[in-house]
């Protein structure tokens, strides 16, 4: 009872899934480049991240459109229906992640030529974590792997701890040296964008669990 009578459906869904993974790698690239632009104070690169966000937005609408067409023409049910609805939620979340990467790039442009307040340590750590989480959650989606999705959501706690540490450190610096407030705020914005990216990955992890198990629940509340 394993062979499929839905080869047309399967073919179209795999196409959607390929586009989803492509969008994932574009978002991953945006996060990586936003950090690079911050580290190198590269405003041209920051502008590129902001411009590329348009392509990510366009792909999101293309995927959403394909999902609606698939629902309308193929009437998926059960895990098929859960998966195609999950794709819509996932692309919305990934589009927002790209907005957060663009947010970091915009901050880089605002910073101008002001030197960094302090060497970047925890922010690159957050970026590494965010990229790993994104890659893993998309893999878990493809493999319907609820256990991995749950573990990814747990890693968001680490993201939150890093953000909290950065927040407290920058607050101390601002208290000591009030004239550093502007530069501290810029770094705070960058860290906040990364923290939000972690939350978006958690949203995707919730969807992966729903697709795999039918169990709809909020993680990390």
């Amino acid at each position: 009872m394993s062979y499929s009578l839905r080869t047309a459906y399967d073919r179209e869904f795999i196409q959607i899934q390929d586009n989803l993974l492509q969008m994932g790698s574009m978002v991953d690239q945006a996060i990586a480049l936003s950090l690079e632009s911050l580290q190198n104070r590269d405003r041209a690169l920051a502008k590129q991240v902001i411009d590329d966000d348009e392509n990510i937005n366009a792909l999101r609408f293309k995927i959403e459109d394909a999902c609606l067409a698939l629902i309308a023409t193929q009437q998926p049910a059960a895990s098929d229906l859960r998966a195609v609805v999950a794709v819509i939620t996932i692309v919305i979340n990934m589009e927002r992640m790209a907005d957060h990467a663009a947010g970091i790039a915009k901050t880089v442009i605002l910073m101008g030529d002001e030197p960094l307040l302090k060497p970047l340590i925890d922010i690159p750590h957050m970026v590494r974590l965010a990229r790993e989480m994104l890659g893993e959650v998309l893999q878990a989606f493809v493999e319907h792997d609820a256990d991995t999705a749950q573990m990814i959501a747990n890693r968001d706690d680490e993201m939150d701890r890093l953000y909290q540490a950065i927040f407290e450190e920058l607050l101390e610096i601002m208290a000591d040296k009030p004239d550093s407030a502007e530069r501290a705020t810029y770094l705070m914005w960058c860290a906040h964008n990364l923290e939000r990216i972690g939350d978006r990955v958690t949203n995707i992890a919730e969807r992966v669990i729903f697709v795999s198990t039918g169990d709809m629940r909020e993680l990390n509340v």
Partner: protein
Amino acid sequence: MRPMANKTQSPKIAVQELDFYYGSVRALSLVSMEILECQVTALIGPSGCGKSTFLRCLNRMNDMIPNTRLEGKVLLDGEDIYHPSVDVVDLRQRIGMVFQTPNPFPQSVFDNVAFGPRVLGLTRGREELDAIVERSLKRAALWEEVKDHLNAGAMELSLGEQQRLCIARVLAVEPEVILMDEPTSALDPIATLQIEELVRELSKRYTIVVVTHNMQQAARVSDKTGLFWLGELVEFDNTARIFTRPKEPRTEAYITGRVG
């Protein structure tokens, strides 16, 4: 798919560990199901899975097939419909049936609907009979189309109209339960949607059990859905649940089309 009634109800029909045999072939195995009043219950499953056999057990239509045997119980309002004291004609008045192909009598529209009340002696005069015919045709959403041609032949109606006429004929004898065996499989999409709308409307007054090969139809019209497979009731649950988060792998396989 419709919101569930939230009060707890005793079942209109309770089926308990039903086995059914054609000769030595066991067509149903230990099927138990509670059918709630004023709900639409859809039965789905591949051909030969037992869903139509099960439906016909609910008003003893299988009695007419020789060399069959039934074990277990079917209770209507708590009373065993297979008890020797049950009058099968009374039973089938309480539990009416609509078939796959519309089967009006080759008579007028009026006489088709009036047939049951006349045979059962339900009316005292022409006026009362007129009222029953009008009410039944209205409830079957056919009145507006036929009210000026009640004496026209039923066979002149379109197939969709004929099927609604057959439903009106069932309604005329004031049933409590209506069984429908693939009621739209001979109809075009518009006539199909008209019947589906009608099923929803009728479920305000009547308990409806519908066998369908069209899974989307089950999803659209029913409150509860049961999946039959090789004579077993694999899963029976709220329709929304069955079509989004079925518990049984066989249900999942069947409704996603991943089964041979």
